[in-house]
């Protein structure tokens, strides 16, 4: 894989909302790259801005500032019509399987919609593509095609959404809490499905979720967000074995492993996450960080590479010497 331009490059993304007179800094300067063919996980707790980041990538939320370069083109600088065209290379899967599908349309029309919008295929060719896609996601096209979304379960609805997203042959798929609303066994089915489809269609994934175990399982690299800023980006296994940011350490230690003998020293965070309307000065995590010092209040830490492909934004990162 060439080390030249990544498929997606996010530079200093800022997304502010106005909420009852206050400005909420949902995303406060986030930069990362996604290489073609990889799965980047984006993890964080509620209010950290991960979903907003995903939506800002495809310009559903309008970024306040910053650049989103997809295949070299900055999406934020495009006019409406150009943006419509460029967006087809990125598709998104949403959290709520039911609300993602138009209740009044049949599944085959839902899946074929992108083809209809762009007039790409008609007639038999269109039907074939739809059938192929439905089969690829594990649904029987003869049975499923004629039905309406309300006749399907949550897991099946997600499959339909995935089929619809794949019809356009996107290069990048953003999965926004895609399995959070599903049962454990269905979740596993969908995660396996996505891995298989990724290999089959050469996809690149941005996987957004709050469950660290799910994200780690699916991703090559994981990025951790807190209150609108990135704390750490590292390959999945590195992140687990050598977390450098105190917040990552806290997240890992709080995870509930289904193993009665699991031993991990608990890092207990004090207090509650601060409000995004009035974030702390300097490092946003400092109010709950056991390692915070004076410098943390004065200076906002930037992402710095401390090991190959391992970046952390912290003045006093955890540097483990042992494994």
């Amino acid at each position, binding site marked *: 894989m060439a080390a030249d331009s990544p498929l997606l490059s996010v530079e200093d993304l800022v997304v502010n909302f106005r909420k009852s007179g206050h400005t909420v800094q949902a995303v406060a300067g986030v930069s990362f790259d996604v290489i073609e063919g990889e799965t980047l996980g984006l993890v964080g707790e509620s209010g950290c801005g991960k979903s907003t980041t995903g939506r800002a990538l*495809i310009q*559903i939320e309008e970024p306040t500032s910053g650049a989103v370069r997809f295949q070299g083109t900055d999406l934020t600088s495009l006019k409406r019509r150009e943006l*419509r*065209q460029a*967006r*087809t290379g*990125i*598709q*998104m899967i*949403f*959290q*709520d*399987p*039911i*609300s*993602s*599908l*138009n*209740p*009044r*349309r049949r599944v085959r029309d839902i899946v074929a*919609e*992108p083809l209809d*919008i*762009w007039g790409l295929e008609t007639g038999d060719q269109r039907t074939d593509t739809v059938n192929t896609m*439905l089969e*690829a*996601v*594990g*649904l*029987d*096209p003869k*049975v*499923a095609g004629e*039905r*309406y*979304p*309300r*006749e*399907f*379960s*949550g*897991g*099946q609805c997600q499959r339909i*959404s995935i089929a*619809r997203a794949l019809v*356009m042959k996107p290069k990048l798929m953003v999965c926004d809490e895609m399995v959070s*609303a*599903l049962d454990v066994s269905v979740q596993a*089915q969908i995660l*396996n*499905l996505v891995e*298989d*489809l990724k*290999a*089959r269609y050469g996809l690149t994934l941005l996987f957004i979720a709050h469950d660290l175990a799910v994200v780690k399982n699916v991703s090559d690299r994981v990025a951790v967000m807190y209150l609108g800023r990135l704390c750490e980006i590292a390959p999945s296994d590195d992140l687990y074995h050598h977390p450098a940011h105190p917040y990552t350490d806290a997240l890992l230690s709080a995870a509930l492993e289904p193993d009665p003998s699991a031993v991990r020293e608990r890092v207990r965070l004090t207090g509650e996450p601060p409000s995004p309307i009035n974030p702390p000065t300097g490092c946003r995590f400092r109010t709950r960080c056991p390692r915070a010092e004076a410098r943390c209040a004065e200076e906002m830490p930037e992402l710095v590479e401390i090991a190959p492909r391992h970046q952390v934004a912290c003045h006093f990162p955890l540097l483990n010497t042992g494994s």
Partner: protein
Amino acid sequence: MSNLTDAVQVDLTPESGLPTAVVGKAKSKKLGWFFWFCVAWIAVVIFGAIFAAYLGLQDPNNQNFGSINQGPTSAHWLGTDDLGRDIFSRIIYGARVSLIVGFGGMLIGMSVGGTMGMVSAYRRGVTDTLVSAASYVMLAFPILVAVIAIVAFWGHDLWKITIIVGVASIPLVYRVVRAATLSYATRDFVTAAKAQGATDWRILTRELLPNVLPAIISFSLIGVASIIILEGALAFLGLSIAPPTASWGAMISESRTYLNVNPWLALFPSMAMFLFLIALNLVGDALRSAMDIGEGKL
């Protein structure tokens, strides 16, 4: 793992897409005989109004001073009014006024107010705030007074009344359609359509409209009923169609003078109006619940 295609298939079998009864099939709600009876009644009234001239009715404006204020007879099935005109035929011809004002006014209201409502709900943001604020102001205004004033000033031809009443209904239609659209406009399937590159027009017509249509249809029918009543009120004030044109409202209004002499003059037009309005309301209501799909849950 040898063949990737095989691996994909193996993992994905038995959940083969066969929907089970876990979520529940779409149940078609039965529209009973009463519903169809009301539909038939509406159809009869509309048919009668359109083809009144070919039904062999007596001339509604034919005054016959020889038989004024008569009750139902074989010659005049519903009696005559104070000028000897046949009530039955006047009722049928009079339906025209109600239908034109009712459906015409609703058409204006729905095309302008409905479109604005859908666009507002879809775009939200500044436009929505401004237009909604304007609609609040207009709704606060006493509509009846405004209509009366404008009709009195501008004139009460049939088309003028239709336009005035239609425009008066725009704020309410706007709010109702906006509310109905809002619950769908925020859903992920709309965002997904945008992300696929659909134009706003396509999203409005192909994604939102099919979902909002049931609410629009049932509200329209009930709205037509309200407009017909409004026309009746205008008639009471002498502000509806000028005589001798028959209209239900005018007939009821005229009947006040002769109430103790000829109660039929009040009774029959009132009943005609009442039955028609009730049929409209019932059909509107039944359609709304029939088109209500139980959306599946996880």
